[in-house]
């Protein structure tokens, strides 16, 4: 996994977030404030611009630059949360990047989100998609899988995790204000997390 892989990951994520922007905003309208799609689209467009204007020299630089851009440009909760995840991944990642090292850095990114958002699995947040993805990656490493298969499993785990937020009652973020009324809706942050993890598989598979 070289620098180009990470740049391609962010480019694909930006493309997918734009494509699914209205859907993410609709999910947010149901239990939040109807801006998740717009904010992430704006943020990933900025990430794409930053990676084009200042091409990163390494995977670490790509992750830190993307994270910093999200923190500085997005606002809301998603900016700092996604931004910190990518920055922490970057700060933890050892090069040259192997699947095992990637999985370790991914886990560090998830922990950063948990810490900053003070969220745990089951709270109906991004964590409910990211934590299963991280576990799937770790398992794939132990089984000695190739990156493509590992990322496909992570993507499946993230998507299942996002769908599993539907019956949950939100305990963090704006949806928590709804109490019982948050039940029955997919968490928009978990949904966008699943999209971003799915981009890993897309890029590893070479179909973009």
């Amino acid at each position, binding site marked *: 996994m070289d620098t180009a892989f990470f740049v391609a990951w962010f480019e694909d994520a930006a493309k997918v977030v734009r494509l699914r922007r209205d859907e993410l905003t609709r999910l947010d309208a149901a239990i939040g*404030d109807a801006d998740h799609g717009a904010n992430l689209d704006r943020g990933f467009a900025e990430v794409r611009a930053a990676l084009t204007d200042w091409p990163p020299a390494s995977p670490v630089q790509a992750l830190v630059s993307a994270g910093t851009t999200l*923190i500085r440009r997005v*606002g*809301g909760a998603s900016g700092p949360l996604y931004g910190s995840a990518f920055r922490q991944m970057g700060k933890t990642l050892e090069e040259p990047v192997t699947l095992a090292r990637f999985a370790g850095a991914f886990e560090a990114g998830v922990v950063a989100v948990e810490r900053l958002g003070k969220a745990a699995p089951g709270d109906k947040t991004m964590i409910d998609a990211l934590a299963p993805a991280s576990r799937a990656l770790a398992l794939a490493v132990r089984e000695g899988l190739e990156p493509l298969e590992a990322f496909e499993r992570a993507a499946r785990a993230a998507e299942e995790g996002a769908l599993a937020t539907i019956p949950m009652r939100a305990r963090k973020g*704006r949806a*928590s204000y709804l109490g019982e*009324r948050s039940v029955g809706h997919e968490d928009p942050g978990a949904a966008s997390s699943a999209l971003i993890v799915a981009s890993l598989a897309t890029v590893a598979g070479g179909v973009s």
Partner: protein
Amino acid sequence: MKKLINAADSVVGDALRGLAAAHPSLRVRDQVVYRASGPRAGKVGLVSGGGSGHEPLHAGFVGHGMLDAACPGEIFTSPVPDQIIDATRAVDGGAGVLHIVKNYTGDVLNFEMAAELCDDVDVASVLVDDDVAVQDSLYTAGRRGTGATLFVEKIAGALAEEGAPLDVVARVAAEVDDRSRSFGVALTSCTTPAAGKPTFDLPDDRVELGIGIHGEPGRRRAPMAPARELAAVAMEAVHGDLPLQGDLLVLVNGMGGTPLMELYVVFAEVDAFIRGKGARIARSLVGDYVTSLDMQGFSVTVCRLDDELTRLWDAPVETPGLRWGR
């Protein structure tokens, strides 16, 4: 939905250009609103901020006796750390800076990150969380900051203007929040320029009880009822959390799309309710102060005053949104 905008993605910037043009006492730089007069040596600086769409909060409260700077984010989206860092450094007159933060996950995260990165300035922060519609428990993000934000900004602003040190300004700001409670009722949802349609559907014969200020749905729906009953629901919720007694500061706040006449109808009912509990409205405000775009509805915020808080409330203030005594 028709909107007086040029484009959905330029609303915030366009409105700030208008604000700067209308109020020579303000300066707008890199999406931060400052007093044109700049920082005053020895005075604690007050910085607040949050998503746009709540006007006049916060930018309309920049000026003598209130804020030194406001950081408006995108609509209903907290500002980014860069704005808060710029504002904090620019308003520091050597006595430190107080961040006034409404309790929403995004606002808290971005202000925390900014405070951490401003290690060259003495920063304290106060969290405003007055909305009793949200249970303050491990199972929520905690109570939302709504109408009490105006009380905190006004009273802390008066104290800072008098030259009080940062720890005192921060303590009194927290005390104002402690003594304040709010509850909101919506007759309609609101429409963000980006979405172009209402955030939630609310039938004509229903109201949403316990709403926040971002068009998010409330705790529950109820049949539409006379203002007297809706005011009573709000006041019972407030009274059940913080018994009404003594001299009160009361804000009956419009959500952006409510005729002022209707707000006075609500105020009369709020006044009657408070008298019925043996308390007294000593100071009041009626109007659009902490809005949610074009939402119809009201919120009521009550603060239990003491002599010192009353004196600070009465102190001169000169901002686009609030002005007296000067």
